[in-house]
């Protein structure tokens, strides 16, 4: 079309120049069309890469979120376990436990004091008992003396009775009775003394044991209550601090899980990416079609202005376009597309173009 308009408007000597301009324009379109073809191949690949990568990430993130959630649950369960203690068959809160503990200790102290009091009371009673036993021993001695006297009296009475003869017979009987009574009393008195001695021994033995009990100082045991209670408080405080830390940890894990869930949702952008890419590829195909239509029409119109394979016009157009490609890998692909379409030769000359182009490399990775 360009050539027809120019023929009508310019003189004959400019026809060659017009042919050259048309050739250049066609070379640019060939180079551009090849670039677009290449883009239409690259874009779907890039889109598929993004889709695969984001699916992979989604799967991993889901796993992460699950793990974080599970961790949060585990720690939460730990917290409720630490906050209680198993006593017999039921679970008791730490506060309740301290209360029970303190009460048990108080109980022990009260019992110890009671034992002390009763021991002292018994000491007093037994001291009285021993005092009385001593008195009884004194009585025994007294009885001995009395019976000795009585025997003497009875003996004297028997002598007087004998002196009195018949008249003293009754008196003699009485004196004999008194003597046998006295003997009986002596025997009883001895018996009592022996038994009192045995009781005395038992009581004094018991008394020394009791004294040992009463003098055992339980002050340190009573003091232990203080120490134990302080220990208990310390343990409980430690537990409470641990629980606080763990609750924080459980909350953190839960937060992580939620954040990750959010990320997973965000990743689903790749859907849109795929759509946009498909749209772009469609548009590019259309452009390529338009270019090829134009090129066909020009070829029909100008049999000698279509740029041949490897022509300087094509090289010029290709180099101009290739300089805008930053990745060497993509530049290489572009050259391949041109060679496959016949615009560049797969020969030394075609490769020379590739070389020139590659020297302008700015590798990104």
């Amino acid at each position, binding site marked *: 079309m360009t050539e027809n308009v120019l023929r009508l408007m310019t003189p004959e000597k400019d026809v060659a120049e017009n042919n050259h301009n048309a050739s250049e324009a066609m070379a640019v379109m060939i180079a551009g069309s090849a670039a677009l073809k290449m883009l239409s191949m690259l874009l779907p690949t890039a889109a598929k890469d993004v889709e695969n990568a984001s699916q992979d990430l989604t799967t991993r993130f889901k796993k992460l979120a699950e793990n974080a959630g599970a961790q949060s649950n585990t720690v939460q369960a730990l917290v409720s376990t630490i906050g209680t203690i198993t006593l017999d068959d039921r679970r008791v809160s730490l506060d309740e436990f301290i209360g029970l503990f303190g009460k048990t200790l*108080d109980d022990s*102290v*009260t019992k*110890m*004091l*009671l*034992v*002390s*009091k*009763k*021991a*002292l*009371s018994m*000491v*007093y009673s037994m*001291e009285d008992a021993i005092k009385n036993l001593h008195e009884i021993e004194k009585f025994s001695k007294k009885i001995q003396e009395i019976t000795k006297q009585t025997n003497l009296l009875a003996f004297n009475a028997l002598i007087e009775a004998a002196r009195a003869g018949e008249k003293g017979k009754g008196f003699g009987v009485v004196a004999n009775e008194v003597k046998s009574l006295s003997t009986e009393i002596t025997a009883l008195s001895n018996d009592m003394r022996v038994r009192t001695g045995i009781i005395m021994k038992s009581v004094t033995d018991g008394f020394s044991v009791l*004294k040992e009990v*009463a*003098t*055992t*100082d*339980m*002050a340190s*045991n*009573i*003091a232990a*209550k*203080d120490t134990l209670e302080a220990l208990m408080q310390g343990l409980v405080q430690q537990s409470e601090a641990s629980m606080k830390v763990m609750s924080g940890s459980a909350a953190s894990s839960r937060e992580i899980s939620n954040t990750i869930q959010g990320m997973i949702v965000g990743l689903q952008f790749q859907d849109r990416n795929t759509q946009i890419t498909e749209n772009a590829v469609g548009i590019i195909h259309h452009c390529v079609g338009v270019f090829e239509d134009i090129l066909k029409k020009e070829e029909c119109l100008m049999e000698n202005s279509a740029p041949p394979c490897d022509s300087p016009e094509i090289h010029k157009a290709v180099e101009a376009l290739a300089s805008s490609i930053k990745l060497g890998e993509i530049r290489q692909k572009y050259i391949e597309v041109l060679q496959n379409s016949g615009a560049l030769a797969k020969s030394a000359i075609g490769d020379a173009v590739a070389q020139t182009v590659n020297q302008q490399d700015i590798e990104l990775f």
Partner: protein
Amino acid sequence: MAITKHLKKGTYDVTLSGNFTFDDHTDFRDVLQQMSEADVRHVVFHMNKLEFIDSAALGMLLLARDEAQKHQKNLAISGATGQVKKMFDMARFDTLFAMN
């Protein structure tokens, strides 16, 4: 332990000084005796000069409490310090005696 007793109008004052242990139990018995016989409503044990008390002595004080109750007398403990006060605290004597 040294024990001094003072009977004034309405109150029987007993001052304890030194160390109160099992060995004082005979002397203390006299105090108990006098306490129950005295014609007073109030009995006070002064402990400011008491330096040490063992568990046997705590038992004796509890006996004194029983005696006082038996004879309708008020028994108070005053001036406990140091080890003595500590023992009283651990034994929860504040729940058993009027303390000051």
